[in-house]
């Protein structure tokens, strides 16, 4: 399988803070990779570097063989990379349908075609009953669904999900996990930033751990939960004694 995303020697400084230091990892096509680590580890910064919201100080990012560094976010999106935001950014005044249509317009100029594509994406995330609702009136999980539908409507090959499960109740987390699985089965390559270990274990076969902007571990979920450095930096010692325990990681 070809590589969907190759990150090599990525660096980003904000003043004296080295937000991302020499991070390299590769996401293979059709896999779901989880990017984990404590708050401030550089996960969202990595997303912003990939999408072109920030320009890296050094390093390269390539998706499907194309170099992304220097591109603007809309160009990255046109190449087939879409993202959701940690704090959902729906177009609040627009209806759900109009939100998703705006994404669909990337590939279809005609409103009718865009509307049809948008309905498909809305149906996929299970939001059809809310089609006419103003985005700002949606519940948290529905806003996350909307973000995913809007990103999907741009017909990406690589989807970056930034904490789509934060703030959801356990039942909603299950729904979100199912949705991510469904996206993956559809053939999408997914990079997911998440704090909920239970969810990560359920969706990802490949985990990269960041701490203070550096990659401290990479591997299969089983290796990661047993890795002493990951336990020290992120999971907490209680996790080592009960690796099967569900629930979030201590910060």
């Amino acid at each position, binding site marked *: 399988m070809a590589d969907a995303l190759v990150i090599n020697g990525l660096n980003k400084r904000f003043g004296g803070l080295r937000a991302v230091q020499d991070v390299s990892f590769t996401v293979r096509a059709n896999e779901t990779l989880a990017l984990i680590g404590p708050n401030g580890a550089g996960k969202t910064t990595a997303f912003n570097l990939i*999408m072109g*919201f920030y320009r890296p100080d050094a390093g390269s990012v390539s998706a499907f063989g194309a170099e992304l560094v220097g591109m*603007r*976010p*809309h160009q990255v*999106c*046109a190449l087939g990379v*879409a*993202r959701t*935001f940690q704090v959902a*950014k*729906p*177009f*609040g*005044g*627009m209806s759900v349908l*109009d939100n998703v*249509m*705006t*994404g669909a*317009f*990337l590939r279809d*100029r005609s*409103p009718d075609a*865009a509307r049809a594509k948008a309905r498909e994406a809305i149906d996929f995330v299970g939001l059809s009953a809310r089609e006419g609702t*103003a985005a700002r*009136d949606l519940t948290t999980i529905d806003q996350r669904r909307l973000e995913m539908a*809007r*990103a999907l*409507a*741009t017909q990406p090959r690589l989807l970056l999900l930034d904490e789509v499960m934060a703030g959801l109740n356990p039942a909603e987390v299950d729904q979100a996990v199912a949705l991510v699985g469904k996206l993956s089965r559809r053939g999408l390559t997914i990079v997911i930033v998440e704090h909920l270990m239970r969810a990560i274990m359920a969706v990802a076969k490949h985990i990269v751990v960041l701490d203070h902007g550096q990659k401290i571990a990479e591997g299969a979920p089983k290796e990661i939960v047993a890795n002493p450095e990951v336990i020290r930096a992120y999971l907490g010692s209680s996790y080592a004694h009960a690796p099967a325990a569900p629930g979030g990681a201590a910060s």
Partner: protein
Amino acid sequence: MRLKRLGGIALASVIALMLLLPLAVTSSFALDILIRVLLFSFIGTAWNLLGGYARQLSLGHAAFFGLGAYTSTLLQIDFGISPWIGMVAGGVVALAASLPIGWLCFRLRGPYFTIATIATAQVLMLIFLKFRDFAWGAEGTTIPNLGHAPLMMQFDGKAYYYYIALGLLALALAVTARIERSRVGYYLVAIGEDEDAAEAIGVNVPKVKRDIYMISAFLTALAGTFYTQYIYFIDPQTAFNFNVSIEAALVSIVGGVGTLWGPVIGTVLLETTSALLQSWLGNSVGGVQLTVYSLILMAVILWRPTGIMGFLTEWRARRAKAPPALAKAQA
């Protein structure tokens, strides 16, 4: 379906009424008010494309109004070119000017953008004030009166001006209606809501802003030419008047930003209020009509920040929902 047909009938009646109005209204004073209403509806509609849909609060549209006014006047007086051609030329000049102005101002967001747009209009006014050899400086000039000369956009009756203003407004509304339903319309609203989210789903934000600014500037400049021809006079203070920038934004905000009819409704409301207050209170304590006008304005903006159109939409939504008790008040 039924609503659509009703809307079509309503629109057709409004058009018919507007076309026939000068036959009934012969008072020059009343026609003057109508022309001002149409003109500011037009400017507001042009402003609304950028300021309303994309929420880029420009308070510098006087720059384009003035450029339109000066271009056609210079062409007419120095080269004898008809203002009809000058009007389009003015639009093109404004469109071209919007590129560097936008290039500078769009780097800034929010209030900083607004301040920058104010500055550009002021700078242009100062340029036309100081460079006297080029365009008459502070004294300005009158437009040579040729009597009834339709080809030179001069008429012996106000009704003609009325129809030109009506045509301009119809043009701006048609352009807006078309954009509103197109991809660009969705992109504009998306930019107004959240620029980062728009970029992330493939919207080339700077390009969309630049393009809509060009259209908005072009249309605003047409109003400048028209106004100068209408009052037969131009000077920097009139052409680049800050009030033009304010009115353009105000009528849209009161009527409802980012809606097709918002600026029209806003203008009708504000101009009518202002004219009525003027005639009721104008003869009492000086300036009291302006105070009352400002109070009404503040009340409207505090009470309905979404404007009259927003109020109507909410009202319709609330009526449609049953039982009404469940409707979200103050959504």
